[in-house]
């Protein structure tokens, strides 16, 4: 794969998948996936429903078992072959070094716990045992994701969809992850809220220099967030490149169709 920017030249990839395959049926799932992800970059995976985007994401996050191939992750404790790790180690990575933002915030939040507890959970999981510090971090993060800190003790089930998504973002970023997985992070939001949440994600990702794997079927979302794009169809990667390059000059016929089908308002 070609090097795209000066920033990532001569760097070790943070995550590298080689001939990754996970199939549920013929061309259902993902197969022969090669990809590299560098620290601080946002990699978008786009494609139509059923093209294998989410399967690929779950394989990269170690949530889904794989049929063959490898995923290597350059962890804080050295290079790890993800699917050979003990489950405890994999769960530690998910808990401490990564974040996972679900499309539906209800899957990523404890709806019956207060917003503060939701944000504080990862800190407590990492061993923080000082209530005051957890509380302060939760308040800071409420502000950073533009939620009213007064609502820190309210339950997320009383929040709107956009607020829940912000809370989910705060909850994942509070522990300072190096890598963030996002599955359609703005899928369930209306257009105006979507725009603000995207702005927020873009800002925070830049500030914290966290690498992101973003799955979306919405080229518009990918255009705003992603540095690089991977286009998938029928379980395979059909095109990769810089976001601008793919959107301006798509090569594969399917990508051309995809790009030309963006609604222009």
């Amino acid at each position, binding site marked *: 794969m070609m090097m795209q920017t000066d920033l990532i030249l001569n760097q070790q990839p943070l995550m590298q998948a080689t001939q990754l395959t996970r199939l549920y049926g013929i061309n259902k799932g993902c197969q022969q996936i090669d990809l590299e992800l560098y620290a601080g970059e946002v990699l978008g995976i786009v494609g139509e429903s059923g093209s294998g985007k989410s399967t690929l994401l779950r394989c990269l996050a170690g949530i889904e078992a794989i049929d063959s191939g490898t995923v290597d992750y350059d962890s804080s404790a050295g290079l790890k072959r993800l699917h050979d790790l003990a489950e405890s180690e994999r769960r530690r990575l998910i808990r401490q070094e990564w974040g996972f933002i679900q499309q539906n915030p209800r899957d990523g939040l404890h709806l019956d716990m*207060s917003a503060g507890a939701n944000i504080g959970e990862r800190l407590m999981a990492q061993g923080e045992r000082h209530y005051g510090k957890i509380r302060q971090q939760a308040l800071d993060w409420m502000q950073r994701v533009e939620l009213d800190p007064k609502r820190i003790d309210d339950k997320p089930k009383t929040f709107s969809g956009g607020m829940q998504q912000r809370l989910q973002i705060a909850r994942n970023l509070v522990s300072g992850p190096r890598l963030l997985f996002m599955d359609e992070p703005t899928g369930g939001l209306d257009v105006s809220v979507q725009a603000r949440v995207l702005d927020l994600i873009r800002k925070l990702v830049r500030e914290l220099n966290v690498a992101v794997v973003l799955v979306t079927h919405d080229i518009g979302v990918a255009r705003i967030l992603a540095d690089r794009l991977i286009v998938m169809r029928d379980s395979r990667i059909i095109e990769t490149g810089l976001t601008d390059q793919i959107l301006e000059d798509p090569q594969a016929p399917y990508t051309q169709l995809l790009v030309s089908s963006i609604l222009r308002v």
Partner: protein
Amino acid sequence: MNEYNFGYLDEHTKRIIRRSLLKAVSIPGYQVPFPGREMPMPYGWGTGGIQVTASVIGHNDCLKVIDQGADDTTNAVSIRNFFKRVCGIKTTEKTSEASIIQTRHRIPETALRAGQILVYQVPIPEPLRFIEPRETETRTMHAMQEYGVMHLKLYEDIAQFGHISTAYAYPVRVNGRYIMDPSPIPKFDNPKMHQMPALQLFGAGREKRIYAVPPYTDVVSLDFEDHPFEIQQWDESCALCGSEVSFLDEMITDNEGSRLYLCSDSEYCATRTEIMQEGAA
């Protein structure tokens, strides 16, 4: 008495339960599944504790049964009579005389000694359930020691009430490893579990789980650095025996809202009252 096998359960069942108990004692705080039997009483009446007691009881044992600290409540009396009938063993109300004490919701005030067995009746053995309803997941969490979520509940308490308001079934860490639900005893009793000379066995009948704390094992209540674990305290003392150190029940005595406080441990209170009366006489 002859219609029943000694201890009601058949010997095979007792053997299975004893095996589970051995495993539970070997891994303090770990919940061991066991094939719980139908007992001649409904779930929720202490079927787990009764099966554990039935499996460890012998001809020479002396049994005490308490419910909320009292020897004379329906549950305690029924279970005591049950064992009298199916074992023909001695029973007592004296904590110091008993070799096995089956309890619901309390640990006796009188300190237990080595050689005694304390059997707890447990409604919900899984401390992680409130946060994670999937049993497969909570087992993994126990295996991986992923216990950060346990502090969520304590966090919520402080956020809402300014202090840790969880007053019973207060989670503990056993032997530096497993997080355990101490059954719905008041947190007042938690410190008694720590380094207790007696063997502590826990039986959950409906959930078919057994766990244990061997004698002289560390049992530490969870807390925050800036909100340490505290037990309940009362400004009053017991209206009968005057105790200032025991767990007190509040009792409303008339329609005007007058109230008095009494020891929840009836045997402890009665013994103290007797001594006081003897002293006065």
